[in-house]
Each structure stands twice: as structure tokens, then as C-alpha cells.
């Protein structure tokens, strides 16, 4: 194998294709018990009493009192989410008890028969009402006040975004098995972060590292939704398995999953932009607010990413950016592909369009006036250390989509029922964790183990959740070692066998962990002796960066950035506000592409999730309850809602990534929503400030 980008059949293709892949729901164990939950029916209240029915023999109830430590470790020690609510419930659906037993129907019935008596307490249900913050950051650059004082024009706008549900096809699930003889907990399940799960189970059950083993099963999609939440279920299942002395399985049903698991944070972004007489943005103030839900979880780090893209891909000399994640008595929000960036890219890209219109420029020309370049400072005083290929991406997008000609044509007055529009978005994604977490906390490691038969196994805690990691990691090792792909093995991680290479999140796997695979492979190649068992190890080494200071929100937030451009063309029906896509284009710089087909899959899927986010994926909370809790009511696009996309990649080698690769997974989602809404704005001649931009919102604006 020579050309790393040339597509291969995925390592796990035949297993999954044939239906032989074993997901958590397919797992059977001797004497396994099924489980169900008693959950809060109210948004906020004190638990006064729990009336449990008499449990038949073989059935157990597990509560927070059964745990060594009832708190889920996520990031900080404050406001940590209880594994089970004991005194107070803080959102509808919060787990109070788990029942387990041999018959699932009976377990469910026992849960329904359990009565919880509450004293209801006042509930904070919306971001606007919220006062308590889970996280707060602020940064500034230059002198925004002075710039505003000199401005020729000041424009203020407020943008809001709703929930987005990951809607992985496989619901959350976990199986726990307690080995009483060795006092060891074995946990198997659907997850993105085996070592997060392991650390959580250790803390909650009071076990040391030797006595907890976590194994990832084939995982049916994650998109961030299986970053932190599986730790909670694992603790619940593990507690039950220990108490019952039998394996316990938790597999949510879809409505339960959609009611209680983490989602994309709803947001409100206020902007004030100061423009000079030459139509240049001289200062920008941003006030970003995310609804964290009941428990902070990952909200602080999600918020950090929101703040880092407050100025989009634009060079604005004076900035004042404030951000808060606020607590409400609603389901907790967490990680979802893009991690705080999609909300802000919708807002900043829409603002750019509105400002362009105000100064009489095209959206493209106005953007071109402001785009960042290599060696510019980032918003936090870091640097864009590498070539910024936005002009190349735009040129390619223009060539593929004929954007400018169509934009001019659709700007002419349109007649009739159907009106066309075309929208453009520019975006970037900081690759890997924000700040210095890789070197300070994660310290990822990869081991390559060569067996006597000269096959090589990659040992790391990174997981394939559908994004193709088994294939891409194996290719990296195979190409370095000049081995056929089938001689490189990648099993689903088992924490008893693999080192911690960090969670599979933050578009870090290829760039950070893939680099470790490459380095370990180079080491192995250097000492390779055929027929001999050998092992090499690679540990993380940080590139030279401007040190990150979280308190000051200053420095290089990311080692590198990936870049993208989306164009969406559509037709709107002014009788119904409904739209039909006519064309979708995506041009991306993800460094070197490790596998053309795998990367295309990331782009195709990410773009559609982005367009879904901007258009149809409506999820609301009413009186503390999620209103769309099923695939019947929560709309993700079907095959009939898409068109053949045209996608291209621009090569931009990154020296610290394997073969020059950068982060790729999240980038592809970011531009869909703003490009979609821009196209609707052109078709309708109206401005919009909220997503999802449903036909309801479109028509309401048109009928005004």
C-alpha cells in the first residue's frame, strides 16, 4: 500500500454488512438481568418518599445509597451529576432508581408501579430565565470600546438556536458483569471513551484500576452523544450488577434515550458590530449564552469552543467576548459534533450576510475583506501558524457551484410560487482539545504489538463508532510498515489490554492519536525483526505553541485548524414556506486525507447533519419536557430530503499530523446550517435569526 489517501474496503465492512457485528443489544450473558428506570416526572423538586412495590425474588432495586460515591466525574467537582437522584430531582427524566430482573416486561411494570412523592420546587425552564451559571469566560482583544466610539455604523443582532439530538441509530446501552471472586467489574457497551467509563466506574464503586475493565462493543454512531453519557449508564449498570450478583443489561428505548440523554446546547448569541466608513468591521462584541441544562457536565468546554469561534474565520482587531453556560431544570446538554461551534457559526455567518446587505456588498465580497490569513492572531492571542487556504476553498467552491453567477441571478426580482436562493458559509474547526489538555491531562499513548507471525496489533483506547477509525489507523500503520492491511489488527478496545489514548472526541483521533500510531510504527520499523514478538510505544509530544491560559482565555487554543466552505442552493415555495434543495457543495481542508472514501463519508454525513440542524431538526422543551422524543416527531432527513452533494478536498499538509492529516469529523457539520439559512434568506428576501429555520418560521416572516 503506497498512497495513503487511496480508498480501501473498511476493516469492519464485512462484519457490519452481514449483520454479524455484535452491538450491545445483541449481547447475551448467562443469567443476564434486564433493567428499567424510575425517573423524575417533574422538573424540580424534593423527593419525599419512594413507594416501591414488593419485588419478586431475583429482582433488585438500585439507588444512590447503593454506591460508594453517587457522583459522576466529568470535568470539575462542582454541581456534579448524581448517578441517581437521592433528595432532589433537577429535570424530567432524571434517574431515581433502577430495577433489574430476569423479565424485562416485569421490570418495566415494577417501575411503573413505583410511586415517588415529590415536593415541587420552582423550576427554571429557559435560558432567558436562568441566573445560575455553570461556566463563565470572558476575553478581549484590542480596544472594542474605543472602536465602537469611532464607528460609522453599529449593528446589533441576536441569534438563537434550538436543541439538536444526535439521533445515533443505536440507542445507548451497557452490560455490566461483577466477578465476585476476583472483585472485578467488567463493563461492555456502546461508547466513545472507554477510559472515561472506567474512571467513572472506579470512582462510583470505589474500585481501583485493576478491578474495573471496560470493553467497547460495536457502536452504532455517537456524534458526541456517547462521550460522557455512557459513563452514567455504566455506573448504574455496574451498581446493579454488583448488588444483584448477575450481569445486568441497560438498553434504552428510543423515547427514553431522546428524553434523558445529552443534546446540543440551545443558545442565544448577541452581537454588536462596529463598522467604519469603508465597511470594515472594526470591532465586535459577542455575548454567548448556552443552556447547560440541569448539570454542567461538559458545558464549560463546549462553551470554550463557542467563544473561540466568536469571530468566525474573520480578522477583527477589536473584540469583547463574554460567554456563559447557564443551569436550567431541563435535560443536561453535552457533546455533539461541533461542540459549541455550530451555534456560533450560524450566528456569525448570518451576521456577516446581514452586514454585507447593509453596506451593499455581496456576502462573498464582504467576507473576502475580512478573512484571516496565516500568521494572523487568533481571537485569543494565539496564531494561525499554518497556511489558511480559504481563498483556495472559495475558488474551488465557485468553480463547482457557480455561486457568484447564481447569486447575482437570484438577486433579481423573482416571480411566481417558487423562488430560488443560494447561500455560502465559511468555517473552521480547531483540531483536538481546547487548550493544553492533551499534554496536561490526557497524555495519550499508543502501543504497537508485533506478533511472531509478523502481524501488528494497534493497542489504544480510541474507538471506531462508524467514522472509520479502525481502517484509518490500520492504514497509517500498514503504510509506514509497508504491510498489507490485513496484517494490521485493531480490536475494539478493552482497558485491560490497551493504554489510554484519550476519548474519541474533538476531531483529535486522526491528528493526535493517529500521529502516535505513525510514530510507534516508525519505531517498530526501525527495530523490525521478522518472526519476533516486538512492541513499541509512542507518547504524546506537544508541538511548540503559545501557552494556553484558561483563566485569561489566552494563547493558542488549538494546535491547528481545519477549514471549510459550504454552498447550498434551494427553492422555496412561498405558499408553504417549504424548501427543496437544488444543490449542496462542500470544500474542505483536513490536511492530507487518510482515506478518500472514509473522508467522503464524514463530509456527506456531516453536511446533512448541518443542514438538518438548520432546517428541520426541531426539538423544544415545554414546561421542562422535551416535546419531540421519538423518531416520529423529531425529524432527521431521509434519503428523499437530500440531493447528490458535490464535495472536494484541498490538500494542505500539516506537519504534526500523520501523513499530514488534521481533524476532520466535526468540521463537516459546521457550515450546513448557515449556508442553508443564507439560501432561504435570498429566496425570501427576509432576514432570519433562529434555527431550525422551519417552514413555520419562513412563512411567518413572509406573511408579515
Amino acid at each position, binding site marked *: 500500500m503506497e498512497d495513503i489517501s487511496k480508498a480501501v474496503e473498511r476493516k469492519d465492512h464485512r462484519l457490519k454488512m452481514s449483520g454479524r457485528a455484535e452491538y450491545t443489544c445483541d449481547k447475551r450473558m448467562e443469567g443476564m438481568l434486564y433493567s428499567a428506570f424510575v425517573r423524575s416526572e417533574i422538573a424540580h423538586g424534593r423527593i419525599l418518599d419512594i413507594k416501591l412495590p414488593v419485588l419478586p425474588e431475583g429482582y433488585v432495586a438500585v439507588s444512590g445509597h447503593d454506591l460508594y460515591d453517587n457522583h459522576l466525574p466529568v470535568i470539575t467537582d462542582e454541581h456534579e451529576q448524581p448517578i441517581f437522584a437521592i433528595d432532589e430531582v433537577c429535570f424530567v427524566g432524571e434517574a431515581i432508581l433502577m430495577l433489574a430482573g430476569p423479565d424485562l416486561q416485569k421490570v418495566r411494570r415494577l417501575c411503573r408501579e413505583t410511586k415517588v412523592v415529590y415536593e415541587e420546587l420552582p423550576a427554571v425552564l429557559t435560558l432567558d430565565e436562568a441566573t445560575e451559571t455553570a461556566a463563565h469566560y470572558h476575553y478581549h482583544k484590542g480596544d472594542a470600546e474605543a472602536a465602537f466610539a469611532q464607528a460609522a455604523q453599529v449593528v446589533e443582532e441576536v441569534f438563537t438556536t434550538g436543541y439538536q439530538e444526535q439521533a445515533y441509530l443505536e440507542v445507548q446501552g451497557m452490560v455490566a458483569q461483577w466477578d465476585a471472586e476476583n472483585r472485578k467489574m467488567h463493563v461492555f457497551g456502546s461508547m466513545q471513551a472507554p477510559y472515561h467509563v472506567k474512571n467513572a466506574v472506579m470512582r462510583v464503586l470505589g474500585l481501583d484500576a485493576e478491578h474495573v475493565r471496560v470493553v467497547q462493543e460495536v457502536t452504532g454512531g455517537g456524534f458526541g452523544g456517547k462521550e460522557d453519557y455512557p459513563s452514567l449508564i455504566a455506573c448504574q449498570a455496574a451498581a446493579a450488577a454488583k448488588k444483584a450478583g448477575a450481569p445486568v443489561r441497560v438498553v434504552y428505548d428510543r423515547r427514553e434515550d431522546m428524553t434523558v440523554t445529552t443534546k446540543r446546547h440551545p443558545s442565544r448569541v448577541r452581537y454588536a458590530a462596529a463598522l467604519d466608513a469603508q465597511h470594515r468591521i472594526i470591532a465586535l462584541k459577542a455575548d454567548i449564552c448556552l443552556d447547560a441544562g440541569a448539570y454542567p457536565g461538559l458545558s464549560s468546554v463546549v462553551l470554550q469552543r463557542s467563544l473561540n469561534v466568536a469571530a468566525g474565520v474573520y480578522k477583527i482587531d477589536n473584540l469583547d467576548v463574554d460567554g456563559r453556560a447557564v443551569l436550567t431544570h431541563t435535560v443536561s446538554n453535552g457533546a455533539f459534533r461541533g461542540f459549541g461551534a455550530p451555534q456560533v457559526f450560524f450566528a456569525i455567518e448570518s451576521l456577516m450576510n446581514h452586514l454585507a446587505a447593509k453596506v451593499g456588498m455581496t456576502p462573498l465580497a464582504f467576507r473576502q475583506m475580512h478573512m484571516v490569513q496565516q500568521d494572523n492572531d487568533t481571537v485569543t492571542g494565539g496564531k494561525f501558524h499554518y497556511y489558511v487556504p480559504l481563498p483556495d476553498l472559495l475558488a474551488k467552491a465557485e468553480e463547482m457551484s457557480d455561486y457568484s453567477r447564481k447569486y447575482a441571478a437570484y438577486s433579481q426580482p423573482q416571480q411566481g410560487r417558487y423562488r430560488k436562493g443560494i447561500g455560502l458559509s465559511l468555517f473552521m474547526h480547531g483540531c483536538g482539545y481546547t487548550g493544553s489538555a492533551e499534554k496536561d491531562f490526557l497524555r495519550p499513548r499508543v502501543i504497537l504489538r508485533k506478533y511472531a507471525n509478523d502481524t501488528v496489533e494497534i493497542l489504544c483506547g480510541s474507538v471506531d463508532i462508524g467514522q472509520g477509525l479502525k481502517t484509518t489507523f490500520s492504514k497509517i500503520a500498514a503504510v509506514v510498515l509497508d504491510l498489507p492491511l490485513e496484517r494490521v489488527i485493531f480490536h475494539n478496545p478493552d482497558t485491560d489490554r490497551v493504554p489510554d489514548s484519550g476519548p474519541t472526541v474533538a476531531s483529535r483521533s486522526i491528528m493526535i492519536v493517529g500521529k502516535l500510531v505513525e510514530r510507534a510504527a516508525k519505531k517498530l520499523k526501525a527495530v523490525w525483526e521478522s518472526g519476533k514478538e516486538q512492541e513499541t510505544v509512542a507518547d504524546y509530544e506537544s508541538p511548540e505553541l503559545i501557552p494556553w491560559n484558561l483563566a485569561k482565555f489566552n494563547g493558542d487554543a488549538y494546535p491547528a485548524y481545519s477549514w471549510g466552505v459550504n454552498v447550498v442552493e434551494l427553492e422555496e415555495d412561498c*405558499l408553504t414556506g*417549504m424548501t427543496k434543495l437544488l444543490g449542496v457543495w462542500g470544500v474542505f481542508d483536513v490536511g492530507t486525507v487518510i482515506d478518500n472514501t472514509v473522508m467522503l463519508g464524514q463530509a456527506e454525513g456531516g453536511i446533512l447533519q448541518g443542514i438538518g440542524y438548520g432546517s428541520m431538526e426541531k426539538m423544544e422543551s415545554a414546561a421542562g419536557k422535551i416535546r419531540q422524543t421519538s423518531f416520529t416527531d423529531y*425529524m432527521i432527513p*431521509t434519503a428523499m*430530503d437530500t440531493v447528490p452533494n458535490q464535495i472536494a478536498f484541498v490538500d494542505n499538509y500539516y506537519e504534526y499530523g500523520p501523513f499530514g492529516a488534521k481533524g476532520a469529523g466535526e468540521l463537516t457539520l459546521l457550515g450546513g446550517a448557515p449556508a442553508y439559512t443564507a439560501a432561504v434568506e435570498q429566496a425570501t428576501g427576509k432576514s432570519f435569526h433562529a434555527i431550525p429555520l422551519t*417552514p413555520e418560521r419562513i412563512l411567518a416572516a413572509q*406573511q408579515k
Partner: protein
Amino acid sequence: MVKTYMPCSVLEALRLKQEAQSEAIFVAGGTDIMPSGRTAPVLIYLQGLTELQEVSKFDGVLRIGAGCTYTQLIGDERIPKILREAMHEIAAPAIRNVGTIAGNICNASPAGDTLPLLYAMDAVIVMGSLDEQGQLRTRKLGIEAFIQGVRKITLEPSEMVLAVEIPCNSYEQMTKLQRYKAGARKAQAIAKLSFAGICRVEDDVLQDVRLAFGAVGATVIRSRKLEAKLKGLTLTELAARRTSIVQEYGELLRPIDDQRSTADYRRQVCLNLLEDFLSL
């Protein structure tokens, strides 16, 4: 303990129903009952009844067997094209392969996809029961009378729906047939609202007109009173009165806000579609 039966004939099905009365429910494709979790002490499965899967056209009446699936009807050229189009927009193939026309009617959801057209076409529901001698007895009721509210139908505990009859002149002689379903996506979507309009214009005069609106009230809304006002108008008169007619319809619609859409949207789109339809 639930009792289940799979009768081999309509008479057997009716005997079972007569015995169990309201203890029993019929299950055809199961696409509504299964996900709803609804059950009953007695379940009578109808899928094996080929008698209920016949289509015939005789004496100016199109008769569609209660058990005909959407897929079957979409492929049957005797079914009016516009009704086939409506069925083609229901859910997705796996649902259309088992869901039945009588199921759509008896489910009596305001959002039922075939309903606005069936209302506009004056569809008649044919019901069967057993008389004292155990012989089949039928009665017929217009669909407007048959559906009484959300999931409420006029069916006696011993009855079952046998067929739907559509007078052929309600579509064959018409000059304009339009329908629209507003769903949140292009497949697998429950209608936010739906509209059906049928009319016949001769010599620039509106001779016949039927207008029906779905998912903007407890049942499909059709007003014979307003239709009567429209009939006989010349196209010029119609154009002059169009705005006021649309307003009058606006007062009839009773949409709600729910997880799928808003009352304002439902009303506005219905009226936009109506106005568009009346632009003859």
C-alpha cells in the same frame, strides 16, 4: 390473557366481533396499533382476508376493499391518480406495504393522509355486521358522518368496515384536482396539514367544487354551505370574491399548536393553498 383470532372469512370475522363486541379490536396492517401500544382482550387479525382486498368499478362506483394496502392501490390504475399520489406520499414503502385504506379511515386521525380527498370525493363507508340469521348485513355512511372526531368513528361494536365506495363522477368529470400535504420531511412524515380541492368548470362557470382540509380540526373540515355559495359563480365573480371566500374558510379552521407545527402555520398554509386553488 389476550385472545387472538385469525379468521379466514369476513363472516367468521364478524361472528367473532359479534361475540366479543367492544372487547375486540380488529388489526389489519398494524402500523397504527402496534406503535401505540393499544391492545384489547380480543384481537382479530384481518390480514388473511383476501375478500377485503378487492377493487371493482361498477355502475359509476369505485369500490375499494377495506384491506387493500396502499402499495396495492398505488399500482392499480382504476384508482384515481390523485388518490394514488396521496397514498404515495404516506410514510415509506415498508408502511405502505401493510397499511390499509380502512385502517387510515378507522384510525380517524385528523392528519390521515387519504382523508381530505375521500371527503372531497364524497366517499361512502360500507360496514358489515351479522343479522339474526347470521347473514351479512351491510349499511353505508358518508365519510363525514362516519368519522366523528379524533379517533372516534361511527362503528357499532359488532360491525366492521368492508369497503370504501367513491362515486366516479366525483373525480372523472372534474376539471381540476389538487392536493397538498405539508410534512416536516419528504418521507416518513405525519401531515402538519393537508388540502384537497376538486372542481368542475364549464363555460367559465364553477359547476361543482369540493374543498377539504386535514389536520386543522378534530376531523377533516369540509363545508357544504360555503361550497354551495361558490357553485354557479362565473370565474370573474369567483376572482372578485376570492379574498372573502378565503376569509370565510379561515373562520372554519380550528388548528392547534403541537410538537409538529403551529396553529398559525397550519391555518395560513391551508388558506394559501385554497387561494391558489381558486385562482382558476
